[in-house]
C-alpha cells in the first residue's frame, strides 16, 4: 500500500450568495485595496489515503468528495493530488 496525499477544494456554486466572500470583499477598500471584486471563500481539505495504487486512491477521494466533503446541491469541488509517500 502507498500513501497518497490529496487536497480537495470545495466552493459554493456560482450564483449562490457567499456571505464570507462578501464580508472579506467589504473590508478591502478600507485598507486601500479598492480594485477587488468577486471574492469567494471556499474550503480546503487535505487528506492522506492508503491505497494499492494511484487510480484507486483518486477514485476513493472523488467518491468521498461527492458523498460527504461537498454537497452537490450547493457546492462544486476539485481534487488535486499533491504527494505520494
Amino acid at each position, binding site marked *: 500500500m502507498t500513501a497518497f496525499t490529496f487536497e480537495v477544494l470545495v466552493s459554493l456554486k456560482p450564483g449562490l*450568495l457567499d*456571505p464570507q466572500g462578501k464580508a472579506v470583499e467589504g473590508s478591502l477598500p478600507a485598507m486601500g485595496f479598492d480594485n477587488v471584486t468577486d471574492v469567494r471563500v471556499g474550503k480546503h481539505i487535505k487528506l492522506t489515503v492508503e491505497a494499492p495504487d494511484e487510480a484507486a486512491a483518486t477514485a476513493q477521494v472523488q467518491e468521498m468528495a461527492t458523498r*460527504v466533503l461537498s*454537497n452537490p*446541491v*450547493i457546492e462544486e469541488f476539485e481534487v488535486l493530488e499533491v504527494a505520494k509517500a
Partner: protein
Amino acid sequence: VSAPRIGVVTFPGSLDDADARRAVTEMGGEGVALWHADRDLAGVDAVILPGGFSYGDYLRCGAIAARAPIMDEVRAFADRGGPVLGICNGFQILCEAGLLPGALIRNASLRFVCEDVWLRVETSRTVITRELTPGETIQIPVKHGEGQWVATREQLEQVEADGLAVFRYSAEDGQLRDDTNPNGATNHIAGVRNAAGNVVGLMPHPEHAVDPDVGPTGGQGLFASLFESALAGTTA
C-alpha cells in the same frame, strides 16, 4: 388510547432535544430520548431530529450528523413509512442525508433571525399537517442563521410540481411578500416533505409553540398530527 412514543435524537451539539421532549409531554405523548451513536430507535412510533448546532456546524450544517450511526436506523424507519420530523438543524440533517430535497444555506440578510413568523400550510398530506387545512396560517418562531432553503433547478421543479412544499413564510392572511420571508428562502419555502409525506423538515420550531404561557401556539396542530400519524403507524 395509549400515548404515542415519540423518539427525539440527541446529537453532540443538539440544543432543542429537551424542549422537543417537553412539548411532546405537554401535548400528551411520551418523549423518548434517543442517542446518535446507538443503532436503536427503542421501538418508538415516530422520530424527531431536533434543532441545535450538531457537531458545531462543522463542514456544513447537519453534514456530520447525517452520517451518524442512528441515521441508518432513521432511514430504514422512514423507508417503512415511519413518521420522521426534522426541526431546524434536524431539517438540515434530513437534507444532508438525502431524505429531503434541497439544502439550507446562510440567510440572505447575512443575519441570524429570531422572531415569530407566520406560515401558510400548503398541504395536509404529511404526518405533521394531516390535522391542518391547506391555506390556513399558523404562527411559530424561527431562530437560525442558515435557514435559506435552496435547491437545484431539477429539485425545485419537482418540489413545486409534486406539491412537496409543506409550509411557506407568509403574512398572517397568507400573502407571500418579500418582508414575510425571514431568510430569503426560494419560493418562501419553510418546510418540505418527501413523496410519501412521512418525512418532513422545517426551519421554524413547533416545539417552542405549544404552551400559551410563553408565546404562539401554532405548533400544537403539528404535534397533534404527528401523534395521530404515530398511532396509526402509517403514512398520512
